[in-house]
């Protein structure tokens, strides 16, 4: 019981403290791949600290929603990230929200963010919000299909149970899971606004989505939004790791060494995710915004195919 609380607490602190690092590592690798030296991997922490100390500049017609939104976005994302098992299964509160609820929490964060983007009444905020919601209308059903595939294989939408099931080697190699894995990666790229869907490094071209929405934010509010974005990226990497490469995670009630192994393998998984993402982003070009529906349509079809395969036969 107390162990579960400790694991849960450790998890909450861990995701919060690692998230900027993950962003920093990805930026560093990308810089090296582009033959730049790049900023230090701890630069995101310095940025956050600097932003928090600065005054927040609000537009003259900003409403209360604009001021509250960063904290809501941060809180919803943090809670969601804290419920995805990282180094150990058996989280204390993992039953309080299953995978569908975690996705819906991210949906709440996105809803608030899109509203905050519309609050000032600038066309940049509008364009970002409009495109973000368009991408979400395709990414969310795809994500639900992935959840269906996982839930039908593992017999549960609880992430801890799914991870335990995958860890026990129950499913083996399955076509439907492979389809779901590909679909999940596509969705993760779109949801986090990475290349080729959106470019996290710029806000000055007309294909922008996320950066356009946060254009009016500054100071501590911007810091909250930045950290929420990092958390969301960490969440998706953890989710892919937890479901498809669960090895090394400490099951419930294991001893301290198992937790140490779990933490070590988790760090390796994050690093692997960062390297792969950086390579992918360097190798591929950003696509036009109206190509994104095809990209996400592929994810939706893969997810639906995975689910249908499972309806046809429980063992494919």
């Amino acid at each position: 019981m107390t162990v579960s609380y400790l694991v849960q607490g450790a998890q909450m602190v861990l995701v919060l403290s690692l998230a900027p690092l993950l962003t920093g590592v990805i930026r560093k690798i990308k810089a090296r791949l582009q033959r730049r030296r790049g900023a230090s991997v701890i630069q995101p922490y310095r940025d956050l600290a600097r932003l928090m100390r600065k005054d927040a500049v609000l537009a003259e017609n900003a409403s209360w929603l604009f001021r509250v939104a960063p904290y809501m976005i941060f809180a919803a994302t943090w809670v969601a990230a804290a419920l995805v098992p990282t180094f150990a299964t058996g989280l204390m509160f993992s039953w309080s929200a299953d995978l569908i609820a975690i996705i819906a929490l991210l949906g709440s964060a996105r809803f608030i963010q899109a509203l905050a983007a519309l609050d000032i009444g600038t066309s940049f905020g509008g364009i970002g919000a409009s495109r973000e919601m368009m991408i979400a209308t395709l990414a969310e059903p795809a994500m639900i299909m992935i959840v269906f595939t996982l839930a039908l294989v593992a017999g549960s939408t609880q992430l801890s149970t799914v991870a335990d099931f995958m860890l026990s080697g129950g499913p083996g190699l399955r076509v439907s899971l492979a389809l779901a894995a590909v679909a999940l990666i596509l969705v993760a790229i779109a949801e986090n606004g990475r290349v080729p869907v959106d470019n996290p490094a710029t806000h000055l071209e007309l294909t922008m989505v996320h950066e356009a929405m946060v254009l009016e934010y500054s100071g501590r509010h911007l810091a909250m939004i930045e950290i929420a974005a990092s958390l969301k990226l960490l969440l998706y990497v953890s989710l892919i790791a937890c479901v498809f490469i669960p090895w090394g995670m400490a099951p419930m009630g294991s001893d301290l060494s198992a937790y140490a192994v779990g933490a070590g393998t988790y760090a390796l998984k994050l690093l692997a995710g960062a390297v792969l993402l950086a390579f992918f982003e360097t190798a591929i070009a950003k696509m036009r915004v109206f190509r994104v529906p095809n990209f996400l349509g592929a994810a939706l079809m893969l997810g639906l195919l995975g689910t249908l395969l499972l309806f046809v036969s429980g063992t494919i």
Partner: protein
Amino acid sequence: MALVLELLCALALLVLAVLAIALGRFSSASRIVYAVSLLVTAAGFAVAVVSLVAMPASLTLPFGLPWLGAHFRLDALAAFFLAVVNFGGAAASLYAIGYGQHEAVPGRVLPFFPAFLAGMTLVVLADDAFAFLLAWEFMSLMSWALVMAHHRDSENVRAGYIYLVMAGFGTLCLLLAFGLLAGPEGGYVFAAMRSHHLPSTLAALVLILTLLGAGSKAGLVPLHVWLPLAHPAAPSHVSALMSGVMTKVAIYAFIRITFDLLGPPDWWWSVVVLALGSATAVLGVLHALMERDLKRLLAYSTVENVGIIFIGLGLALAFRANGLAAAAALALTAALLHVLNHMVFKSLLFFGAGAVQVATGARNIEQLGGLIHRMKVTSAAFLVGAMAIAALPPFNGFVSEWLTFQAVLLSPQVSEWGLKLMVPTAGTMLALAAALAGACFVRAFGMSFLGRPRSPAAAEASDVDRFSRAAMVALAVLCLLLGILPGFVIDWLAPVVRSLAHAQMPAQVSVPWWSIVPIAESRSSFNGLLVFGFIAVSASLAILAIHTLASRTIRRAPAWDCGTPVTSPLTQYSAGSFAQPIRRVFGTVLFRARETVSMPLPGDASPARLEVVLHDIPWEAIYVPLAAAVNGTANWLNRLQFMTIRRYLMLVFLTLISLLLVLAIWT
């Protein structure tokens, strides 16, 4: 006892309607009528809540057909829907105590409002086909009168006409369905229908007729066309009743006939219901996304939610046909919970739209903007309603959609191939509808309440009276409560579900921390209370930490806008431009949307124009040809009126001969 009390409530509402005609001349009549109907519906709600767990009671009154009488019955299902009707009625009455003051001709609304409520109460209580249809028609006519309250507006007249035609069509279908159910012996009492089972072809026919009859009232695609016209035409508190409550009465009729009277279902019924529900959900919300009139947008979103409820009902039918009682109970609970949730947030949103209309005189969201600064309470309540209807935690809409998803996940247990393919597709459509609803309500809230005012009226708006605000705040609080403590409602629904599905969901209130656990905790669980608590605590912690350890100063400055701020509010993103990406992705096929850009020649100072054409496919493919055919036939038959006497005599003679021939062949 409870049944008598409910009937007395209906009677009191009818008396109130008559009194309202007499009182109509006095200036305070509006307040009195709405206050009394608030009291009566509140009493009706309390009785319904209590009697849900009680034994069914029935009563025969000496009205109606002499050999039949009027049968009334109050069982768990009726009690649940009575609670929905009366709660919606009470909320609308409270809102209208303030809102009704703005009515130009109160005499056109006041008598019909309580009568409409009484009609809905009697539909739910009726226990024979005659009383049911009579109450159903009464309900339709009273709501039609309310739609026509502002009858000088030509759009309202058109809406009223289409509504009247569709309502007549729906009642006709229900009449035929009851005729088939009654059988050759004419057992018009529901108990007689329950006791004898129809052969499967006739039962299928009854299902189709019920889908047409109840579906046309509820707004199933393609029978939804009247709904986005008629619901917004009425005053806003009536729109809330029509959208939030009357569609639920139609769903009651569907549940009563298919789950209660019709006997065991065939599996393919559920395929039909699921397909209709999915199409309704997605088309409804896409229409809502394209709509600029705030109230019409809400009406289209009602179509979407009716689709979601029908997906739940279709799943319940599928499980019942397969003998999976526990799964059917889960799906049915999800559908009923969504009935309740939708009543709450749709009423709230219509109240908000009414408040906006009172404050600005506008319903077009392209003319609004910035209202969050001037209508603080309304905007906060509307935000809660928007998040709830977009199925976002921790509000109530999420819980019922989550339960529906859990029911979808149980469907590999069904054995038929048609269902095995249909159910995941319906699940995808549900997810798509939920995501589109998110986009739709970002647009609705963002354009109306955020940004800068797009018209002088929006710039000078002020918040509405305290009764209207009280109604909205109460419903917003309820959205949150139902979202974080759904277990109590699920347990309260158990008798209803048990009476229809012969099983119920596991008891929820006894689960630690008030989680909801549809089947088993290892399978899935959700705890809105904890999630809400976590979010509230971590947000407060973040605020506290940053304000004490880092900075808390605020500076106000002009908007940054990438260094090139433009002052005109017209440069903001408009509702049309917000919807453009989704229109391009989904609308090119579903609405045959076409955009044409006409650029002026170089040197010409005239503006460039973007023209968007959308087609309403069901309307153009079904209703327009149908109306043309009816017109054509009528014109053709019109010739019968202008014939010579010889021809008339010949017609009479021919008719006589053919009748004699028929008689000769018959025997």
